[in-house]
């Protein structure tokens, strides 16, 4: 591998890693508070991409308006999922997981009659290329890194500096104690669903101009996000960020050298080895 190719795949790895981080952050936030894994995250990523397709490409709205709309719409959908699925089963983890799986397959399958069976393409939003360390990289890919960065910093400030974020941290530590202190646990859980869904929608909306769109497009990023949160430790936000960067780089460099399938198999083997020797992940607490 030449140096130029290495630089190129590193930058692309950072931009893909930013997408993975957005996916993994929502998953790890929801796991920390409710001990559930949102299997529907990949389907929400897919819907985020399709909001961009219709609102930006078909209806001609500005890209950033479509981007914000995707986050708001799917964030609201996340709150509704908490109201209509998580709350009625009274926090039962197993029924929630199975219901989220069914929601995933429902959204994916419904995508075919609703969006059509042909792959969709969104035209580029940012045109041109820019030189990074002497290697030309498309601005489209580069722009993902600052946009995702803003969202990650925003999430960090939201969780650590606002009252609602404090309530989320309180639920993560002890749900009953938080409720006794006057935290409206149901409402805050609903907000966590909304934040998680909005981040997944943002990830899909960022990737829409780069990859083709189809109803199954969310499956790969979801699996990547699973690997990241196992790598970083379930419930750990720094772990999700570091894990996302590591996996993005591995993915891009190994995929450039060997191909995408061996890259996935390699990351799977890596996860099995990690579970054998350091089961709580890089940043996780003892289970």
């Amino acid at each position, binding site marked *: 591998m030449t140096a130029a190719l290495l630089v190129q795949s590193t930058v692309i790895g950072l931009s893909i890693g930013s997408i993975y981080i957005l996916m993994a952050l929502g998953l790890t936030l929801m796991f920390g508070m409710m001990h559930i894994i949102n299997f529907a995250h990949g389907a929400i990523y897919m819907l985020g991409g399709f909001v961009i397709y219709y609102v930006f490409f078909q209806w001609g709205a500005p890209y950033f308006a479509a981007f914000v709309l995707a986050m708001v719409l799917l964030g609201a959908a996340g709150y509704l999922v908490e109201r209509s699925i998580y709350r009625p089963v009274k926090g039962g*983890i197993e029924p929630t997981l*199975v219901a989220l799986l069914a929601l995933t397959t429902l959204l994916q399958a419904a995508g075919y009659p609703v969006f059509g069976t042909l792959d969709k393409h969104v035209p580029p939003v940012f045109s041109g290329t820019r030189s990074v360390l002497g290697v030309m990289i498309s601005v489209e890919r580069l722009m993902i890194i600052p946009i995702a960065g803003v969202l990650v910093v925003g999430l960090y400030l939201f969780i650590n500096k606002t009252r609602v974020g404090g309530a989320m941290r309180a639920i993560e530590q002890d749900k009953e104690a938080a409720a006794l202190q006057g935290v409206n646990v149901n409402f805050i859980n609903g907000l966590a669903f909304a934040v998680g869904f909005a981040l997944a929608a943002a990830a899909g909306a960022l990737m829409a101009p780069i990859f083709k769109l189809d109803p199954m497009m969310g499956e790969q990023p979801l699996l990547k996000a*699973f690997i990241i949160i196992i790598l970083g430790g379930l419930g750990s936000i720094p772990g999700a960020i570091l894990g996302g960067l590591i996996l993005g780089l591995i993915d891009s460099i190994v995929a450039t050298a060997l191909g995408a399938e061996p890259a996935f*198999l390699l990351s799977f083997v890596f996860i099995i080895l990690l579970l054998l020797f350091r089961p709580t992940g890089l940043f996780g607490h003892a289970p």
Partner: protein
Amino acid sequence: MPRSARTVSVLAVVLALLLLLPLAGGDYYVYLFALVFTNVILAASLRPSLTCGQLNIGHSAFMCIGAYTSALLAKNLGVPFEISLLGGAFLAAAVGLAIGYPSLRLRGVYFAMVTVAFVEAIRLIASIWVSLTRGNAGLSGVPKPSVLGVTLATKTSQYYLALFLMLVVLVILYKLEHSRLGLVWKSIGMADNLAQSLGVNLANYKLLAFSLGCFFAGVAGAFYAHFIRFLFPPEFGFLLATNILIYNFVGGRGHFAGPIVGAAFLSLLSEPFRGSPYETIFYSIVMLLTILFLPGGLVTLPGKLAGLRWWKRVSTPRPSTAA
């Protein structure tokens, strides 16, 4: 009639109907029901793992291993069906041990996520190992099943083979569930820390439940391979794995009959949409409705309906006897 006698007579009637079905129905029903039996094996074999509280979302991967192993043994090496079926089942169980050992020691969600990723890993291996599996072109020309050297050439004879395999698997699983082992599994599912405090080795019992399920998923896969005679990697993906879980939850988690009822009900009712997105839409909607409105699954439905009638009848005061 006492409860057990009623159960036995219902079972006898169902079995007689299934034995007579090929005489009454055409090839279409024979084919359809052989697939239903395969789904029943898959659904029932997930139950031990679920009883331990382990959400296995990767069962289709073990079916895939069983299917490809048996098909390749028979096609490339001419191994008889009985042996290739067992070969597929044992390899599926062995891989189950290897995947389960690192992931079952942790909280259930780790295991659930690892199994989802494993489905994708196995699907990728089946599609990129072209020299062995023919990849996404599909593996065709799998030999028909044979028993004691006699090839089962007709779909009707293969139907009886499927019925036989399903009954054997169900009897084994039923016996296990009602043995000491089954009680230990149940205790782990209900309160694993309590079970552990009583000296139950959690990891080993969970691993046993999981790899036993993988074994029978391998059996189902091996039969499927020789029945359909064409294997295609994407068929063994996340969707099939989710469907196997859905059979269990729609049928009901609390009773041995749950996965059987769920698999039969969903595979038969979704038949008009088979192979289209509407099949998945139907499954998913039934699943969501079940979780929200009938959490115990279909097996609790007769009891609930009877409860309604009873409630109406006794709305006039009636002397209560201490329960």
